[in-house]
């Protein structure tokens, strides 16, 4: 080891010499020769060591592709698969959801007794049981069953190898909108969680199209918004039906929302490619790997552990303090109204113009950290001012909404607002992490917000002007 460490500067000069030397010797054919040689060698090696015994079996995936990506069946099958996933989720989640709700309300009775037994003050019971516990109970019972069904079913499709085919089918549409076919894969991820989908946009190599995918990902409803969409669809849109028909109508309405989300995604992508993200679509290759039968239980176990429980944990961590805050706001009195009522009264005129009400808008604002808690906050808000009934079944829930002046327009606009509004806090943080830019992060907040307000405002005004409500 030399005292002055002479090796370092010389190393820098050495690199310079090296580069000059390489540049002098290099020519345009080097790359082609190297790659051609690698391919040639690979071919020879494989030729010696690998035998293909059955040409027919090599074609299985291709045969399946001729149906799943065919001109006639490609899109219908895709929509049908989406519909089936929703149908399974909605139909399967109903019963466990109400069982969980009953369980939580049964436990709540004992908790209340316990609080009385130790002569706990009313405010403590309010904060912990009526705020925190009830909020948590809602999140778990409303969210866990659909997530525990949706994520594994989706993972099965993914492991089967269907998702790249979706990108293949959809690519032409995205190219038309100036985007990348892989954007549809990031959207598919967004059905689970937009925050995770923002990370998954890394599969899009071109920065321009990647930014487009980031800015529009929010228009596919994430897991935190499914419960809102599903619940409102089944309470208000499918009210006239029963049994299987009701599930079917609910699934159709939810799918309609998804299709609206996709159309908005394409429209916003197109608008961005003409304005802030000008440029030509960049190069594109997409591998369609062979279809593989997924390992059923492995897939279910891993998606449950990785996704369902993870998302639930996040929701609980955020919902717990939100429940407490909502309860406190509803119980601190300023004058003859609670803080909550002051806020609601302040928001109400604007919210009414959007076909919503002050409670709903407040729920969306307080729900910024996570979409999962919008519905629980709304319910806590309604309950804190209305009769303190316990929600044990959906009929009572609908009555609660009707008592607060809901119509089909309120339900529709809340669904649309939920679909279109700003991304949740975690997603915004991820967008900042990925773009390292306040400007783009702010835009990703602004674009959906303006859209959500614009669309709901327009629909509310039209519906009222036409006398539909």
């Amino acid at each position: 080891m030399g005292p002055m460490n002479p090796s370092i500067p010389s190393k820098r000069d050495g690199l310079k010499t090296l580069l000059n030397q390489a540049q002098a010797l290099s020519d345009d054919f080097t790359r082609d020769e190297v790659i051609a040689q690698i391919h040639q060698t690979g071919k020879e090696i494989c030729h010696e060591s690998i035998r293909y015994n059955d040409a027919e079996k090599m074609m299985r995936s291709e045969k399946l592709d001729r149906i799943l990506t065919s001109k006639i069946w490609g899109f219908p099958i895709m929509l049908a698969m989406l519909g089936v996933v929703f149908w399974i989720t909605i139909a399967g989640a109903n019963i466990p959801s109400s069982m969980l709700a009953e369980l939580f309300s049964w436990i709540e009775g004992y908790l209340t007794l316990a609080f009385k037994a130790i002569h706990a003050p009313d405010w403590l019971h309010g904060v912990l049981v009526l705020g925190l516990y009830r909020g948590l109970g809602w999140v778990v019972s409303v969210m866990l069953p659909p997530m525990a069904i949706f994520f594994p079913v989706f993972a099965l499709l993914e492991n089967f190898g269907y998702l790249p085919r979706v990108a293949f089918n959809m690519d032409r549409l995205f190219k038309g909108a100036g985007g990348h076919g892989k954007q549809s894969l990031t959207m598919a991820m967004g059905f689970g969680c937009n925050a995770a989908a923002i990370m998954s946009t890394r599969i899009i190599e071109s920065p321009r199209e990647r930014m487009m995918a980031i800015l529009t990902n929010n228009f596919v409803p994430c897991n935190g918004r499914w419960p809102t969409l599903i619940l409102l669809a089944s309470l208000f849109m499918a009210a006239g039906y029963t049994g299987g028909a009701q599930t079917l109508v609910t699934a159709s309405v939810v799918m309609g929302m998804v299709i609206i989300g996709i159309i908005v995604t394409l429209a916003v992508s197109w608008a961005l490619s003409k304005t802030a993200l000008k440029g030509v679509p960049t190069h594109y290759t997409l591998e369609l790997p062979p279809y593989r039968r997924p390992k059923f239980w492995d897939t279910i176990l891993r998606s449950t552990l990785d996704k369902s429980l993870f998302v639930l944990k996040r929701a609980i961590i955020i919902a717990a303090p939100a429940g407490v805050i909502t309860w406190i706001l509803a119980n601190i009195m300023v004058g003859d109204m609670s803080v909550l009522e002051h806020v609601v009264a302040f928001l109400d005129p604007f919210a009414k113009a959007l076909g919503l009400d002050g409670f709903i808008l407040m729920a969306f604002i307080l729900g910024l950290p996570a979409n999962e808690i919008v519905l629980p906050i709304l319910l806590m808000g309604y309950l804190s001012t209305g009769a303190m009934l316990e929600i044990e079944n959906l009929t009572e829930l609908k009555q609660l909404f009707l008592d607060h002046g809901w119509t089909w327009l309120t339900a529709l606009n809340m669904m649309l607002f939920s679909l279109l509004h700003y991304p949740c806090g975690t997603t915004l943080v991820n967008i900042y992490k990925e773009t390292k830019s306040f400007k783009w992060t702010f835009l990703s907040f602004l674009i959906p917000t303006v859209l959500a307000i614009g669309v709901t405002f327009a629909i509310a005004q039209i519906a009222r002007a036409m006398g539909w409500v």
Partner: protein
Amino acid sequence: MKPLPSTHTHPRSLKQHKKSDDATFRIALAGNPNTGKSTLFNALTGLRQHTGNWPGKTVIHAEGTYSYNGNSYTVIDLPGTYSLFSNSADEEVARDCIIYEKPDVTVVVLDATAMERNMNLALQVLEMADRVVLCINLIDEAKKKGIHINEKRLSKQLGVPVVKTSARNREGLSHLQKVIKEMAYGKINTNPYRIRYSDELEEKISAIEETVLSTFGDRLPSRWVALRLLDGDQSLIDSLQHRIELRRKEVGAHGTDEPLYPVEA
């Protein structure tokens, strides 16, 4: 959360010499997309995983651990790439890990149903590293499709061990772990296949390789670096320059002369 791998603080040289019974080895998994590489990673490490970003890159970095016969192994799941010619951030990350961080063993995961395409990456890795294991995964799918792979012959041709696995059925995993262990302890001699190019190109390579050796010593795969420089791989040039700058600053600050690149044992 454990710190992300850093290319210049990793005490490789110490560990290499000691090879005590409780040593921790670092294993990198390279491979094309859709080879079941992540399934293999999951099968090896179970739930002992954590993910983050590669320093300064928007590329997901997944690392996990497993124990085998009293040793602990850290597995780095490199991004799935078709090549290591720095066409993308993913490829740069995978390349840097293999040449600078020098994992104790680099496992190249191949899709048994698309061996020829996958062989391209394997051949590239064989030019960059000595301690390489080829893992032919999805062997169950290959069987279904009537593909027969003679792994003994392949191993002879390529000069490195070849292991067949079906990670999703947990087939061949313990054999893979055994081979990894033996290679980590230096009990397997490899003779990685090096592609021979045209005489003209080979001449150029030897000329530059000499300068590479005099500049970097044997810390980098000199033949491979020479080839990449001839190809005008700007990303590699940038990363070499960056490392030298980094090194210069460090020496200026501390006055020590730890090797910038992990020294081969």
